[in-house]
């Protein structure tokens, strides 16, 4: 309790700066992705700063509709979820302000807090009364539950090997060169992690939630103005946070801001490039996908972790 109450205003200011920076970076990556995708499809595409324009426009819209209490609150849930998760992850080891509130809990807290934002979005979608929004939530939850399985298995393998749930501890255990990154220390669990990350980022072929042209844009169908702006910002920082988590768990974390930015970008692009090649799955195909190969890799990863632990002792 004291740890929270003792926080000084300066630290909170640093955190706020870090959050703003992360949102900006998230939006920038969004712009880059649109550009990259356009080039792959032989289009010119929007400028990379287009997301900034979009968000600014939304925030300055003067009127909006609302469907009820939850419709109103959902963007708040979404943003709090995105920022909260970012704050719980130490982005750059040992740098004040970029460790956020990670003293509150370990990697399990991060993983479970991810659902907070999703839940908020889903509730808002429900309140809007739009069938497409709800269909998207049904798909999203189905897919989420299935990619969480290989991801959990990879995480369990990781924790079994490094002996801690603390993200700081996990980063420490990977220190000392690329060979110590968990992705290479236990490649089986690493593959499970990489594949489940695809689901987490929800680019094609796993973009069944927003599913453009299919169920307009899914959950936020009814949203506009500040609400949608908040959601977009939340989504931007959420993407950064997820990538940062992946970086910390599998790619040895980061020791400087540029390193963090590069690693996050690379992780992001992994999902984007896969998405550029594969067309969208149907919902049940996506669920089945994660319950097959990624899960087998995850199980094998645990077995490998146990074997290595056994050999080490």
């Amino acid at each position, binding site marked *: *309790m*004291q*740890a*929270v109450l003792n926080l000084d205003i300066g630290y909170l200011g640093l955190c706020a700066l870090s959050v703003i920076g992360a949102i900006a970076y998230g939006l920038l990556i969004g712009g880059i992705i649109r550009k990259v995708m356009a080039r792959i499809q032989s289009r010119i595409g929007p400028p990379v700063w287009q997301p900034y324009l979009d968000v600014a426009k939304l925030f300055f*819209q003067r*009127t*909006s*509709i609302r*469907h*009820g*209490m*939850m419709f*109103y609150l959902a*963007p*708040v849930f979404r*943003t*709090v979820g995105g920022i*909260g998760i970012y704050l719980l992850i130490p982005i750059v080891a040992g740098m004040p302000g970029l460790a956020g509130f990670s*003293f*509150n*809990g*370990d990697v*399990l*807290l991060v993983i*479970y*807090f991810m*659902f*907070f934002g999703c*839940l908020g979005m889903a*509730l808002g979608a*429900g*309140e809007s*009364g*739009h*069938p497409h929004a709800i269909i998207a*939530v*049904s798909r999203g*939850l*189905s897919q*989420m*539950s299935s990619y*969480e*399985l290989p991801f*959990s*298995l990879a995480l*369990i*393998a990781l*924790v*079994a090997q490094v002996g*801690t*749930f*603390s993200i700081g501890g996990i980063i420490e255990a990977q220190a000392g060169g690329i060979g110590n990154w968990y992705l290479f220390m236990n490649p089986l669990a690493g593959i499970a992690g990489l594949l489940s990350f695809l689901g987490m980022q929800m680019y094609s072929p796993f973009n069944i939630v927003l599913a453009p042209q299919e169920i307009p844009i899914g959950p936020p*169908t009814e949203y506009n*103005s*500040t609400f949608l702006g*908040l959601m977009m910002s939340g989504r931007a920082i959420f993407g950064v946070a997820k990538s940062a988590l992946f970086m910390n768990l599998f790619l040895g974390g980061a020791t400087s801001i540029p390193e963090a930015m590069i690693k996050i970008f690379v992780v992001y692009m992994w999902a984007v490039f896969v998405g550029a090649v594969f067309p969208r799955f149907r*919902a*049940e195909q996506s*669920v089945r996908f994660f319950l097959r190969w990624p899960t087998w890799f995850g*199980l094998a990863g645990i077995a490998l972790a146990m074997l290595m632990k056994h050999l080490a002792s």
Partner: protein
Amino acid sequence: MNPVLFIAVPLGAAFLLPLVRRMGDRAARGLAGLTFAFVLAAVVAWLPALGNGAMLTVTTGGWPAPFGIALRFGLAEAVLIALSAAAALGSFGAVSSRAGRDATSGGVRGLVIVLLMVVGANGLIMTRDLFNTFVFLEIVSIATYALAATGDESRGLEAGFKYMFLGAVASAFILIGIAMLYRLTGTLSIDGIAESLMVGGAGAVPMFALGVVLLFLFAGFLVELKVFPLNGPAIDLYDGVSPAVMALTVATALNASVYAFWKLMPIFRAVDLTLVLMVIGGATFVLANLFALRQSRVRRMLGYSTSAQLGLIVMLMPLAHSGDVSATAVGLLLVNHTLAKAGLLWFAGSVGKQTLVEWKGVLAGSPAARLSLAALVLAIVGMPPFPGFWGKWDALVALSRGPHAWWIIPVLAGSLLEFIYYFRWLRLAHVPAEDAETKLEPTGSLVPAHAFGIIVLGAGLALSSRLVTSSTDAVLTLAGAGLVLLIAGQLPGRLLQFLSLAAVAASGWMLHQAGSLAPTSITGFFMLIVLFGAFTVVLAGIGTPPDRKRYHGLFLLLVASLVLLVDARGPLGFFAGWELMTWTSYLLVAQGQRGGRPAFRYMLFSGAAGFLVLGGILVALGAGVTTIGDFAHLAGPAALWTAILLGAGFAVKAASAGAHVWAPDAYTESPDLFSAFLSGVLSKMPLFGIVLFGTRLVAGADPALIGGTYGPGYALGWLGAITAIGMTLLAALQEDAKRLLAYSSVGQIGYAVVGFALLTPLGWTAALYHTVNHMIIKLLLFLAIAAVINRTGTRRMHEMGGLIKKMPAQYIAVLIGIIALSGVPPLSGFAGKWLIYNALIEKEWYFIAGVLMFASVIAFLYLFRLINTIFLGQLKPRHREVREAPAVFVVAQALLVFAIMGLSMFPDALLRVTTAMTAPFFGAAGVELAADGSVLVSLGYLNAFGVMAMVMGLFAVFFAWVLFLGPKTTKVGQLDIVMAAEEPPAPEEIHYAYDFYRPYKRAFAPVLRVSVERGWSRFAAVLSAVAEYGRRFYTGDAQTYLLYAVVFLGIAAVAVLSRLG
């Protein structure tokens, strides 16, 4: 007063009756009734004087034993005579109504026979003379044939003839035996014969001759006692003779024969027949109960039951005689059987329906009759507090400590079979009126059945003084209030709930005074769970009182039994509380609108769980345990088997995968408020059992065994994990809100089971935390759903929608509930998940951890569906007028919400309690609680308050943003949504709700094809087929029966003669 009067008065009345009859039928009936009443009153008045074991021996004509006939009158005789007189009076009463007379002819002529029957029985009970025994036996037998034949059913005549046929054989054998015994010993006095056989020793009488003599007597009596395989004619008798007559026969002829056999035990002792009798009795108990499964006729089913219960008594009799089992225990079984069976037979007779199908719904309109039938059934299957329970408990405990411990298995197996057919019968009585096949048209008075129900209950309660502890005041307050409310069920429901609340509060205060509420003790911890749950459910009930009249009283009885269970000081207290909980909750489940069938299943599985638990306790008792603390001293195979049996029992009761099939229906079909209690509190009782015994077993176990990764708990851990994932998956696919929560509840208990299975301090802390958390959440969720069902009148989620606008308080309750249950920070569920994963990884149960993580994500599916489909989306036009739940109801929920918020911010407060509770047994806490509120474990850390502060801070900032900096918003109409230029159709058509996770179902199709339900159905079919095959053994043909008798005698001869050595 002279006991001879108990023979002389009915005999005199029998002679007078033809004369008195000239004054009219009414006078004749009056005389008979007076006679029975006199005998009953005289014996009952005598009982207190006999309580201390006083014994009165009367020598007729003043001649001592060798010449005169000695009668003995002690407590046992008095009780049996009282039963026979009471049964005679009852049968008389049952058929005295006009309708009854029509159904049971025989009229006044029959009364003479009834009087003679009582004469014979009383004589048979008291006599100490062998030849006299034969004479009275003949009187009784002839009276039985005569009564059987006076009925106007032709089946009765035929059955009576077959019965006489075999009876004649028995009589002949007995007579030959007696004659030869007289030749050998020179006396007819039973005591004299026994003495001469004892004193003379082996050489005094020729052993072979003695063997032959005893064989004749033995065989003759076994025919009289109708053991397997000689029970055919007796069972046929039930089918053809009026149940009132059969009730009389049970209480007179049968009891007297049993007692006569008991008196001859000293003579049989000359040859050790213990094993022979145990085999015959045990086989009768199991087989008769098995064959009864296939009976479609109620009376015949009761006949099988009689045969079975007699078999149990025959099995225990030699042990009682040798002192291995207390004779009182066997006596209690006999008394219990007489009272309950006579009551049931009158019941069956007065209701008058022959087949089980006709019973369907016949009692729908008469709750008092249902309750009475339930009491009689509970008595006969040996549930506490009825005398049968005490008899069975004492007998089984004695068996467990003696050399015959394995015989417990057939007793428990037979008892479980007995459960099946009795509760199936009871189930039909609970079928709602609209499904009824026939209406109730009583052909006789139900008063005697009710009276015997009350007597058997009273007798049981008198025996329950063994359970007195410091919490007895609270138990009595609750039980007393429960009984009062049961009677006062007509009062307004709100008042009844208010009184219930007062009773719960008062008992809580008493328990506090008695010091039973210290949260760091196991008892106090679970007692608080019980009281908290009961309090909130009853408080909510003031808002929406259940409409069932008996609900209120039964609920308090259940709470009373839970207090008894949780405060148990010894194995007996625990098991009695456990069984009381079982049947009170069974009756509550049956209170549901369609609760009959689910309640039946609930009872079967609970019964099986109870017998497994009993088995575990008996193993421990056999190893010398007396108190619960002694379980720590168990070692070796005894400890292992105790743990396995108890674990299996608790797993069944916790509805673990495989045995879960009872739970969804029971949770769904129970009264809505009771579902909350069932899930919030009752589902914690198996966990209480695990904690209570597990702590001791762990404390006494080898640390190396417990400490290893794959210790004794590993299998249980997998069971819990499979339960968690299986039930969670099924929950996601339900359309019924209560059913969804039911599956969820079962799945969540799986988590706790995994935690306990770890057998580490951290695992137990996790499980206990989860237990409390789950209780609060499930109470909240089930109450909210109860409120919604109450207002909308449907349970199907897709028929609701958009209710957030009508019931905002319920929406908030469900929102808090689902966030807390799903484990999303910052609410309380997260700490539970966090603890359990840490515990699992610490123990290196990686795969189970993976399964649980998967399950906990699937849980989002059903939780979101619960809130979305009911409260969000499109409001249905027919729900435009729906109102919020009453204020009191919301207050009860607010209590729960506060509890969740408190636990969310300060989980360390609860962890402090749980670690203090388990640390003494493990020698370690497993969790470090830092001064700043952080929880530290070996692998990770959590500061719940910090998380809450962060989330609340962020939330405040952004909420202020949308509130003050956000755009001006306009509320739009329900159907005012973006539909690509189309006009949205009606709300029903765009509420995406039915089959919500269709893609998921498709993806999991191969897994979902596995059906445990189908597996159990097949098992039931096989059992039924076996019963059917066995049942055909009784062809109804006198020649076959005679063949069985011959074969049986042959085998008995070999068995008896081989014992001669």
